């Protein structure tokens, strides 16, 4: 992974001291509240329902054991001993003290971590495929480009006060495991007819109040033009995006209002001015950054059948293997998904002890690296098959091996009304109800792959619009109600879910879900997934059946 040089280190160190001074001036009354708000947000600090919340950046979801141990330490020393992994693969601390945040940032800087631009109206943490570099379908590893974007966007002087936040996702091949079509900019590594590798560029996707699938602005962008094209898009947005209404300020609204063709015209005109400037990425810089992401020195003797006997002998291990591990491009290796969806615990939460256990596992068995996923799980990407049993045992001992990845119980859930000041409704207790209702793993396995995404408000942090099943908390006269959508997906065939019917109460959510699932089970063809069945039979069949059984 990328390692800081002197410049990188100096930047985060100086940034910490700058923020320390800003905090001091704020506490001394020299800095107005709303100005400090903008500054603290650009350092990841929100003020939430009970306490501040600090969002630490994990650039494109990649961290090493030392960093995860530091996060465990920070959570223990400055917080309540746990953290929360988000859909932007960042880590949130829910109970830090405002005046201690500079010290937290200083500790993080010791291991090349920071909270720069994890919030605020600026370019946020770039995300990518959690299987980058280890999946067979990839054209190229997207992470070097994420790092190049990270550097270019960090403290970008022109784009710190955009109309609204700005999110970029990069994928490395035809499969999309980064929800790139619902990002402000989605970059797909593609190969053109001449065999050159570059990017397909989408713009104007997003979720929140107005969910939109991104539109193609350029079919093929040469690699060397990556930064000039990004700069052109964001400059056009900065100058033309709406600033009168924060709900209409995202780039998706500008692209919709203007039309993609007109927007493209403006971007192309701006791009023509800067394409042949210092923004052009030299091959030397691309390969310098690529060198940090070279494939590991895999054991060429790693046996592909190393666990076959164990799988036959140990049913629990086999179930976990089938559900929570993924094929690796190198023979004899496997990708392990660490489930942060234990039974009746908040999705994405992790205690300091659990973080340390995973950090140790990574060091012993996965080249010392850990990745976050946009579904709030972690990944040990390079585990030798012969080590899987040992890894599974440690994960199981730490309540991190519930064999539920990809199932209904692998819900993506925001912290909701229990923590978040923006939320309209609680999410965690309702997620527990769902878990209790669908506790039986055999039933979950029979249902197969289903993505359930659950947001506590329309800001859609848990991406409910693109869940196969989406749950949205709404506030009706002070009570929590839940709107259900079906048919969303965030992969390469991205689609927005459609509303099933009227919002239902917290008690009713599991029952309505059961009816939805019954419709699926009744209508599915052999081996057909929930989303495929939905797309074949349509919303109407679900509506009819769910409403019919309600009376």
């Amino acid at each position, binding site marked *: 992974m990328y390692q800081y040089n002197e*410049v990188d280190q*100096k*930047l985060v160190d*100086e*940034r910490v*001291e*700058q923020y320390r*001074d*800003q905090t001091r001036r704020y506490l001394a009354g*020299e*800095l107005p509240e709303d*100005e400090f708000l*903008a*500054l603290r947000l650009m350092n990841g600090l929100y003020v939430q329902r009970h306490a501040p919340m600090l969002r630490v950046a994990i650039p494109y979801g990649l961290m090493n054991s030392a960093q995860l141990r530091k996060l465990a330490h920070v959570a223990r020393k400055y917080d309540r001993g746990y953290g929360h992994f988000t859909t932007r693969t960042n880590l949130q601390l829910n109970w830090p003290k405002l005046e201690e945040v500079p010290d937290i940032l200083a500790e993080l800087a010791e291991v090349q971590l920071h909270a720069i631009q994890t919030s605020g*109206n600026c370019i946020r943490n770039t995300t990518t495929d959690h299987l980058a570099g280890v999946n067979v379908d990839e054209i190229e590893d997207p992470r070097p480009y994420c790092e190049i974007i990270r*550097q*270019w*966007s*960090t*403290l*970008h*002087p*022109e*784009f*710190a*006060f*955009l*109309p609204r936040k700005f999110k970029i996702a990069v994928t490395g091949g035809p499969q999309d495991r980064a929800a790139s079509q619902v990002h402000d900019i989605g970059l797909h590594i593609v190969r053109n007819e001449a065999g050159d590798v570059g990017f397909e560029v989408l713009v104007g996707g997003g979720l929140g109040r107005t969910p939109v699938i991104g539109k193609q602005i350029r079919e093929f962008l040469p690699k060397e033009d990556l*930064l000039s094209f990004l700069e052109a898009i964001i*400059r056009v947005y*900065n*100058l033309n995006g709406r*600033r009168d209404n924060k709900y209409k300020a995202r780039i998706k609204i500008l692209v919709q209002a203007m039309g993609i063709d007109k927007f493209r015209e403006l971007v192309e005109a701006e791009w023509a*001015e800067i394409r042949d*400037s*210092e*923004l052009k990425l*030299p091959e*030397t*810089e691309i390969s*310098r950054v690529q060198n940090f992401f070279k494939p590991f020195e895999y054991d060429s003797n790693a046996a592909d059948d190393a666990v076959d006997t164990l799988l036959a002998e140990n049913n629990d291990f086999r179930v976990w293997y089938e559900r929570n591990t993924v094929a690796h491009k190198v023979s004899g290796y496997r990708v392990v998904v660490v489930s942060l969806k234990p039974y009746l615990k908040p999705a994405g939460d992790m205690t300091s002890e659990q973080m340390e256990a995973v950090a140790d596992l990574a060091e012993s068995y996965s080249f010392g690296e850990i990745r976050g996923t946009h579904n709030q799980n972690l990944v040990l990407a390079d585990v030798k098959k012969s080590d899987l049993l040992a890894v599974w045992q440690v994960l199981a001992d730490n309540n991190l091996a519930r064999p539920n990845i990809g199932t209904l119980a692998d819900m993506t859930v925001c912290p909701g009304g229990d923590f978040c000041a923006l939320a309209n409704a609680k999410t965690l207790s309702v997620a527990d109800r769902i878990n209790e209702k669908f506790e039986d793993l055999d039933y979950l396995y029979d249902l197969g792959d289903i993505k359930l995404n659950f947001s506590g408000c329309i800001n859609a942090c848990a991406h409910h619009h693109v869940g196969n099943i989406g749950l949205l908390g709404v506030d009706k006269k002070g009570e929590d109600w839940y709107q259900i959508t079906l048919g969303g997906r965030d992969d390469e065939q991205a689609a927005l879910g459609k509303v099933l019917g009227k919002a239902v109460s917290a008690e009713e959510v599991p029952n309505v879900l059961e009816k939805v699932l019954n419709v699926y089970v009744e209508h599915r063809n052999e081996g057909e997934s929930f989303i495929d069945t939905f797309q074949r039979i349509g919303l109407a069949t679900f509506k009819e059946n769910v409403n019919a059984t309600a009376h």
Partner: protein
Amino acid sequence: MPLLINRQPAANDSWTLVNEETLSSTGGDIIVPLALLEANADSLQDRKGRVAVQINGDDNIDALLENPNQYELIAIDFPVFRDGRGFSLARLLKRAGFEGQIRATGDVAHDRLTFMERCGFNAFEISEERYSDESLAVFTEVSVRYQGAADDPRPVYHR
């Protein structure tokens, strides 16, 4: 109002920002908002004293970009600090070859000065209550930068 020019407090600034009401009654060097300037182009020609222009994110500056050096000073207004269009406007002026002073006016303070300078501003009008001598130190708070900008177009790997 305190004014910094090239990172130093500036005394004896000759420029006065005018509005519709004060335009005719103000002598000496004046800074005129673009719309007002266009509406009074003829009468301003006969005026003694220099004329500069002030722009903001709502203005169409295409004509100005054709010939920015007709002015020795262009002010860019920040109606509220969250309005980041001024950063891009400064870069467009620099790219168009503007060589004069780019002055930030409006909601301008300490924590945005470095980004403004990097985008091409070299003068900052800061309200009395927001100004302190500490503001002078802000330019060196973060001494390294990854990306090129108006101050130095080279990204870190070309420096």
